């Protein structure tokens, strides 16, 4: 039994509009104006705020002088995923939040859009910004072709390592490819960015799950191993009715949306999303944009307790999504499929009528294999940090590459 798709009520044109870039690229004129507004701070707080410490004033100055390739190189040198970060980073709490213009009671510099402007000029265009280093005879295995693993791979290739990336899925990119809200980044963009990294000569072995298709121990034959496998499935609600048709976890819902034509994505007419993190927001807005008549967050605590970023909450409100606070799910009810959600509120019991329940309670750790404590095994990204942003994964991948290089180059004096 399939969930009837409400997407069918919207025209293809409307669907295309609903999932178009939420922050369209700057025109050249707008970028020039914005770049020239940057003060070019010394020891800039935007750079400090960025986990990958992109030299923001440096790349903005390059945009101002018309050196877009140089600007892109400054960004991507520090952060191999500088393009997806420009689209999906929570800049309000990172670089743009730190901009000194906030203290002059002004809007901060639109760093994300400038970063996108610069990286747009090289993305998928085979611009040789970086090159593989002279082969140094050492091999590194990387598990997981997400932002952490590929950032690690990119820098190791620059230093001459032979790098093999094992990816369980058919497509690389991790959540960048399957899990970013469609209106922020499409899979095609995510894959173009990945390809720019693979072009440095990274060997990708997709469709191989370590711990199932190949024992982890086999990788210990490499000179080093980096584990960047992300997190596992969405946490379960633990209430009756959770296995009814019409109940789906947020990551699966978003992946379905991103891997097929919009109108073929199953979505209810009345959708309830359980949870109040950023993934919950991605789910509730995208369900609405697919054509759900109502799309509502149900959250057991209050507005101030939501873990999503404020601007994500504002986006969902603008999209016309509903919010039910202090509303604890007790049971999913339905005769053969979802028909409602029993909740407990301060006013008592209530049944919210719905035909789709999306769970967004965060992900559990992976359990395919145990990562041994070993001085040649490194880890980063969501797997190691418990779940954070693309920029954190990229930073950790880059840092791991540096540590691996320091370790291996130290062994025989080769390397840098």
């Amino acid at each position, binding site marked *: 039994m399939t969930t009837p798709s409400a997407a069918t009520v919207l025209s293809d044109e409307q669907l295309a509009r609903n999932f178009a870039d939420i922050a369209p690229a700057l025109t050249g004129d707008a970028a020039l104006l914005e770049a*020239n507004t940057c003060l070019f701070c*010394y020891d800039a707080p935007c750079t400090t705020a960025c986990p990958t410490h992109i030299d923001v004033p440096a790349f903005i100055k390059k945009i101002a002088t018309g050196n877009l390739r140089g600007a892109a190189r400054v960004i991507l040198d520090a952060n191999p995923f500088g393009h997806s970060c420009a689209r999906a980073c929570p800049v309000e709490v990172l670089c743009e939040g730190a901009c*000194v213009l906030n203290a002059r009671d002004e809007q901060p510099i639109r760093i994300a859009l400038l970063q996108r402007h610069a990286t747009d000029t090289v993305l998928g265009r085979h611009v040789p910004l970086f090159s593989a280093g002279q082969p140094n005879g050492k091999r590194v295995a990387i598990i997981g072709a997400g932002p952490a693993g590929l950032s690690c791979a990119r820098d190791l290739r620059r230093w001459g390592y032979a790098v093999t990336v094992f990816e369980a899925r058919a497509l690389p990119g991790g959540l960048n490819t399957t899990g970013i809200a469609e209106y922020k980044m499409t899979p095609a963009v995510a894959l173009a960015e990945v390809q720019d990294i693979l072009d440095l000569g990274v060997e990708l072995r997709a469709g191989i799950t370590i711990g199932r298709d190949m024992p982890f121990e086999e990788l210990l034959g490499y000179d080093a191993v980096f584990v960047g496998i992300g997190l596992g499935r969405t946490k379960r609600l633990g209430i009756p009715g959770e296995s009814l048709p019409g109940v789906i976890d947020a990551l699966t819902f978003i992946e379905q949306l991103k891997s097929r034509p919009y109108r073929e994505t199953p979505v209810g007419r009345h959708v309830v999303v359980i949870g109040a993190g950023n993934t919950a927001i991605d789910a509730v807005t995208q369900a609405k944009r697919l054509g759900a008549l109502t799309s509502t967050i149900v959250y057991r605590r209050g507005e101030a307790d939501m873990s999503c970023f404020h601007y994500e909450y504002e986006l969902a409100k603008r999209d016309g999504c509903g919010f039910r606070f202090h509303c604890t799910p007790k049971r999913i009810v339905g005769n053969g499929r979802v028909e409602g959600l029993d909740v407990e509120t301060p006013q008592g019991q209530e049944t919210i009528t719905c035909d789709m329940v999306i769970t967004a309670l965060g992900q559990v750790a992976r359990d395919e294999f145990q990562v041994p404590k070993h001085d040649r095994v490194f880890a980063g990204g969501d797997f190691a940090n418990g779940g954070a942003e693309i920029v954190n994964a990229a930073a950790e991948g880059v840092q791991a590459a540096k540590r691996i290089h320091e370790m291996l180059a130290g062994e025989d004096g080769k390397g840098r």
Partner: protein
Amino acid sequence: MADLRTDFAGIKSPNPFWLASGPPTNTYGQVARAFDAGWGGAVWKTIGEPIINVFSRYGSVDLGATRMMGFNNIELITDRPIEDNLKEIAETKRNYPRHAVIASLMVESKREAWHEMVKRTQDTGADGIELNFGCPHGMSERGMGSAVGQVPDYTCQIVEWVKEVATIPVIVKLTPNVTDITYIARAAVKGGADALSLINTINSIVGVDLDSFAPFPSVAGKSSHGGYCGPAVKPIALHLVSAVANDPAVKIPISAIGGVATWRDAAEFTALGAGTIQVCTAVMHYGFRIVEDLVDGLSNWMDEHGHQTLADFRGRALPNVVKWEDLDLNYHLVAEIDQDKCIKCELCWTACEDGAHQAIRRHSRANGGGGPVVEIIEEACVGCNLCSQVCPVQGCITMKQVPNDFAPTNWKEYSAGKKKLAPRSEQFHTAIWSK
């Protein structure tokens, strides 16, 4: 309400704002619209034997995202017949009798040619004549424009010829493309000029196309040096106007030209002695309508400062333009940072550290805790102004006088051993680096 009426060497206009000779004053239609918009006068686009212009004539220098910070042209004088221009000048005067209409003239350096041109011009009823001795491009190759204005004897000679027949005031327009403009100004005075106008444009190449390697403005891949103007040239014009106005051998009215775009610019030129203000590039950028704020802003400022007429403050800044050797060496300043206004961009620190006198102390942002990120090292500060100029927050960094008990002392007095210098922060550096 301030009275902006102007009497410039006998030429009257309702306000000091004249359109400078150039593309905006090429036709009756333009000048009429300008007067309707509020301009007080217009110097007609230079009249002479009609020329042929090239296609692509203007080049521009942008500063960041700001367009036309500087501007240049390789356009020549009017390409319209002399009689058409003279007819339209006459019509302008008929329809706008209260406005100043000045004919700018440039003919070959022959006495008869000048006599004929001046006489024909006077027949139109024009209020005055401006002699274009300034254009640095094109016409100079034919012995006119700046080719005249760069040689004092030529300048004097042609002014004399003009004055032999002139019955209306004669203004000589000076070129800045000389070593010392006062020599040319004095030559014009010697020839009998009634007034001066300056500056004409500055010789320039505004840029090079990095794809074709053609200089701008490109004419089939080539270009020629052209006349530079626009806001970028204002400081040069301010200096040259003050140099001429302060020259005791000149003492005739000056019409100021050079980068005027706002009423503030006009007030500054007036304070340095200008009788009228001529504007061209700003009109080429934004149109005649800018005169509204030129008049309104100047008038409001004059009202706020109790100046009833332009004469009330004309030349007031001139006595303050002195030689360096007359400056007081015992006047000491130190920078002061208002920490409440500081947005912690650290531009003052890097400017002072790398570009000046290492007089700002920087605390790591990481150790911040709300404390100051930058602080002036008062014993090292030489009061140079740089930090206050790079600071992006108005009023955040100010320069405070450091009082001392020493009498004002200039270089002449000090080097003659007559007076003593107060101890100064520059000695701090000597002490540090000699360790």
